[in-house]
């Protein structure tokens, strides 16, 4: 959707929120700001469970911006723009 950023939820997060995707109107936002808006959009808080005590991203949590892990950019300060796609995965494993 033009002028929006897609936030997609996977894994346990999707099950808990009962939401697969929300579209957030905005441009040039940090991931942190985007996720706060996504909390409002879904009407549920989830950000706290993605963060550790130091407000860093919890080990195992994966956030991708257009397929690229934000840990390789500026973590939660990574900026996203309209048209981007952000994917959130709660910690998971397998083999």
């Amino acid at each position, binding site marked *: 959707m033009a002028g929006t950023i897609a936030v997609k939820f*996977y*894994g*346990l997060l*999707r*099950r808990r929120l009962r939401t697969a995707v929300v579209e957030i109107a905005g441009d040039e936002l940090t991931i942190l700001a985007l996720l706060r808006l996504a909390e409002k959009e879904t009407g549920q808080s989830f950000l706290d469970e993605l963060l550790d005590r130091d407000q860093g991203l*919890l*080990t*195992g*949590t*994966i956030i*991708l911006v*257009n*397929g*690229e*892990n934000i*840990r*390789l950019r500026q973590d939660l300060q990574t900026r996203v723009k309209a048209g981007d796609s952000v*994917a959130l*995965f*709660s*910690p*998971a*494993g*397998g*083999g």
Partner: protein
Amino acid sequence: MTGWMGKIVKIDLGNRKQETVAVSDATRRQYLGGRGLGVKLYSDLCSSGTDPFADDNALIFMTGPLTGTVMTSGRYQVVSRSPLTGTICDSSSGGHFGAALKGAGIDGLIIEGRAATPVYLSVHDGEVEVRDASAFWGLDTQQTQKGIQAETSSKTSVACIGPAGENRIIFAAIMNDKDRAAGRGGMGAIMGGKNLKAIAAGGSRPVAISDPEGYKALTARLERIIDKNPVTGKSLQVLGTSVLVNIINAHGMFPTENFRRGVFNDAEGTSGEKIAETLLERQSACYKCPIGCGRTTRTRDKQGEGPEYETVWAFGAHLGISDLTAITEANYACNELGLDTITMGSTLGCAMELSETGAWKENLRWGEAGKLLDWVTDTAYRRGIGAELALGSKRLAAKYGRPELAMQVKGMEIPAYDPRGAQGMALSYATSNRGGCHMRAYMIAPEILGHPVFLDRFSTVGKAELVALFQDVSAVVDSAVLCRFLQFAVGISTFTEMLRTVTGLDFSDEELMKIGRRIYTLERQFNNRAGFGRGDDTLPPRFFNEEFQTGSSRHRQVLLEEMLDDYYAVRGWDRNGVPLPQTLADLGL
């Protein structure tokens, strides 16, 4: 020593002679059990030129010092020379069989020779009894397990082969406790070659613990750690291993149509999330396992276990199939027939590409879900094109003049992570001593999942050291013997503590890492003698000269050569991948 039962039985199925094999305390300390001690015993008994189907080839079932003790300790390892790869091979399975074998009073079983007619072994009270299995020959793995339980005890745990093993399909699995599989490397084919239909084990002999108080405190603490960990305490329980489908697909490295693309458009419909919403009846757990990653599922017409992540991929994206019911029922069929789902699916993908290119005149088409069940069944019985599929991908592709279309390393098919998306995983595949396997060093953990630390998946820096380290830790866990999923929650120090508490030996983290290195190097020595060297530590050419055009792993190639030299240096091997004399001396080899 506590922990071990102190008895390994060797039996010749040809003349039915049995003997107890003496293993010194020093050897047990050097190799632990399971994979490590199994490989040591195999190397002492058989040469690297042994034909896997020869009478004098040994097939070794091993437990470890932790089997039957702490959580997830029901596993066992099967060791022999693989008919699929020609390398040394250990194949691991969960369930209860490992604990049952040890409860029956033995640490392991070495099987040689070939029975004149079908037999099964019944292990109880430290004794091994050879029994007639004529009535079970030809039955599937579910019927066999039920039949042998009816003849022995409903509490007996049975590890058996199905028609695929009987027909010596070189990727036949050994199935136990209904649907748990020692899947990889064709250990089931070796059982079939020996006319050995099954092993039934039962007993309740306790494993002696050196420090019972410490053990109690340790297991209580472990329970809390496993429960609190988001992977072992939540994700694996609720969504199983197939939670990886969406994750790996989002990273553009979910192998699609024989690794020609890294994004499967229908991944969502075959994901762990979708399975939980549709087919899942309940989670299932192995012996003393608080995780319970197993999936008991039901389609409209059938019920069974699975699919796990690898199987969802092998019969799904790899073949361009998005019909979750077809994937699941192909999984059930493999369980019943006793086939490794990874090699089966990967071989079908290879066949489809051979067919598409015209190299093979058969008409196997991408996405053809309706024929999946027939292809699997025909493979187990070597019927029609099944006789060709039974070759596995390497031999099939070579037969039709396109060896590069087999997605394998050393003859074993690569699983569900495209190595162009994770350089460490690429090195892990290339240097795996049983071929294209993700379990020797699961680099997906740091490179994708961020466990225990997050690493740049496209960088080669430091990957050699980490692959070697992961390989060594994995060898320790496979020899202890515990479930590898514990590694999402605990590190080497916890394994050291477990071994100290159970055995009373003053193991250190450093000693365990050296044990892992010793096992890995011994396996390498075996493979070297069998003719494997640097030229075999590689990947199919596709990964070096074809790039994805879409997805987040696009425009990437595997940069193997620059990691391989580092890896050999870290390992103390020469440039050809042969361990240096000093390395062998340091490890006592």
